[in-house]
């Protein structure tokens, strides 16, 4: 009997009555069998432990690949990343695009595509941390063959330009990915929260974040699957195969070096295309290094720009979440469910139904 752990990550959508009935496990198994037939991408990796959520969390001895689908990456700039991964007990495999440059990319479109494809297909690589953002992932995403990845998913880690990968996978495969620092973003400081939280996420520790609440936050609580990433890239994904639907989900957005009027314009586009209407919650990360046109300043704070676009809705909104183009870029698993609470003094974001072992699954199933 096949168990689809991935399905449990969506259990919160199952009506409460079903959850409390004794017949739950029976119902779950029969439902899961039906769902397996409906969507093979929820196939389940049967590692030697006999149980593995999708994708499998890492353990010492696993291999992480580094490939650069966007901007060019200097080998010297990723030394801290390599050191950290080795400290975590992992092997590192560098793709051909590390150290390569073509214009401002880490190789031609073909080179970056083939490097990424190879790492996706390589079963000896258990996770991929992307080299760097910048721009370029969108130029190759449509030529990627996801068959291997669907059969044996692995954690993909990145942000900024790599938002297109998060969006594409969520829109087409519903496989979780990690929004987090990339290879050029590691510092030598092993206590830096970007690295610490990434390690925790990769090795299967439950995500539980508690941060200060800001006065501009909108209070409330909700549960939902987390999706999102860089606002410019989410906007650029509109109308394409990578376009995500946000209904019933918690949306995370961040951006860097954007003109305020353009932030307003992109938020209007999201609003007008229905992306803000049925959210369960909105998490606003860093909007760093925002720009103003000095001749014609927009003169409206980013919080106000965003709040105005969601004022007719009731869901909780939190600002200044430590994720995005900033030193503290906490790892966030997209495609998994969270409890999200915005209070007067605190914001809590806890992974819901976290499963990293068969015991976790049994605990939930027997509850």
């Amino acid at each position, binding site marked *: 009997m096949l168990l689809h752990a991935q399905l449990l990550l969506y259990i919160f959508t199952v009506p409460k009555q079903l959850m409390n009935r004794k017949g739950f496990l029976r119902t779950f198994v029969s439902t899961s069998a039906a769902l397996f037939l409906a969507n093979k991408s929820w196939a389940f990796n049967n590692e030697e432990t006999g149980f593995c959520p999708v994708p499998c969390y890492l353990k010492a001895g696993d291999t992480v690949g580094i490939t650069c689908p966007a*901007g*060019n990456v200097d080998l010297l700039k990723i030394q801290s990343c390599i050191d950290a991964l080795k400290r975590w007990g992992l092997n590192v495999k560098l793709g051909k695009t590390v150290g390569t440059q*073509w*214009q*401002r990319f880490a190789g031609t479109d073909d080179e970056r595509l083939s490097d990424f494809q190879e790492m996706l297909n390589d079963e000896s690589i258990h996770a991929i941390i992307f080299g760097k953002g910048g*721009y370029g992932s*969108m*130029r190759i995403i*449509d030529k990627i063959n996801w068959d291997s990845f669907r059969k044996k998913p692995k954690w993909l880690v990145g942000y900024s330009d790599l938002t297109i990968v998060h969006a594409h996978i969520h829109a087409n495969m519903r496989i979780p990915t990690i929004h987090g620092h990339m290879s050029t973003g590691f510092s030598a400081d092993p206590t830096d929260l970007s690295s610490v939280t990434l390690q925790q996420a990769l090795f299967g520790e439950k995500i539980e974040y508690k941060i200060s609440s800001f006065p501009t936050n909108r209070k409330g609580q909700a549960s939902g699957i987390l999706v999102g990433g860089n606002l410019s890239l989410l*906007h*650029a*994904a*509109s*109308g*394409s*195969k*990578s*376009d995500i639907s946000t209904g019933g989900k918690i949306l995370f957005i961040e951006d860097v070096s954007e003109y305020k*009027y353009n932030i*307003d*314009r*992109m938020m*209007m*586009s999201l609003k*007008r*295309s229905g992306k803000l209407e049925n959210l369960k919650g909105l998490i606003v990360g860093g909007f760093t290094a925002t720009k103003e046109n000095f001749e*014609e*300043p*927009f*003169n*409206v704070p980013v919080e106000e720009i965003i709040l105005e676009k969601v004022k007719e809705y009731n869901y909780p909104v939190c600002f200044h979440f430590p994720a995005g183009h900033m030193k503290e870029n906490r790892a966030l698993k997209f495609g998994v469910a969270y409890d999200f609470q915005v209070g007067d003094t605190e914001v809590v974001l806890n992974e819901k139904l976290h499963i990293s072992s068969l015991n976790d699954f049994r605990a939930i199933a027997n509850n």
Partner: protein
Amino acid sequence: MAVIPPYLNKGDTIGIVCPAGFMPYEKAETCINVLQTWGYRVKVGKTLGNQHYYFSGTDKERLEDLQEMLDDDNIKAILFGRGGYGVGRIIDDINFKKFKKKPKWLIGYSDITVLHSHIYSRYKVASIHSPMAAAFNEGEYNNEYVQSLRKALKGVKAKYTCDIHQYNNRGTATGELVGGNLSLLANLVGTPSDINTKGKILFMEDIGEYIYNVDRMLYQLRRSGKFNSLAGLIIGGFTDMKDTTIPFGTDVYDAINNIVRDYNFPVCFNFPVSHSKENYALKVGVEYTLTVKNKKVTLQEL
């Protein structure tokens, strides 16, 4: 073919409204005077000279001003003062009921692309993509581009030629003309103002963008199907382009060419539609034939 609003006669009234960025009254004075010398009356909206932070008024003020002009039967055309940013904030609140019954010419470019796309997609009404009030200043009202607007208002069918360009893709296309500012076309994807480009001739221009961002926006258009089944493509001016510290590696036309060269439809580069002086009046929604030959490029209104 889209609904063609009635062309203007002497004595008709043109309204001037600023639906987006702030514009000082003085910057539109020459335009107002020249329109009068062309034989038209001019009605100035409350948003010309008005200011609310960056905008020419609050959303409510800009909406009301535009709504009034749209609903006023005496106004036969609306020439927008300027673009900037702001139409996208009010477009969904505009009531087009009266406009649908009695369409009039809406004239402008840049941020006005939102209106062109919206009224064409939703109501199949034609509009004029052309210079706006500031283009009349410093004697420029005599140039062929502002004069092309004058002709368009009278109903003169346009025939434009432009210099050939090494990246042009030869061929002939006939179709309704759609397009405008690239940043806005990309911004409108997925919204109720989004345009369907099937069988159309698409034109685009932009200003002050990073080359990598032009590349990204074109990929966005491509990935949202805008180049599928296109009849023809007109690449206008891409002016004041910016580049990142690590340069993109090619100039903007190279970047554009790399994305569009493998399609079969005719492509013309460097057509005079832009944020510069070179900005011929183009009727969005009206049928044109684009002919791209070795030695000559023509765009003929049908």
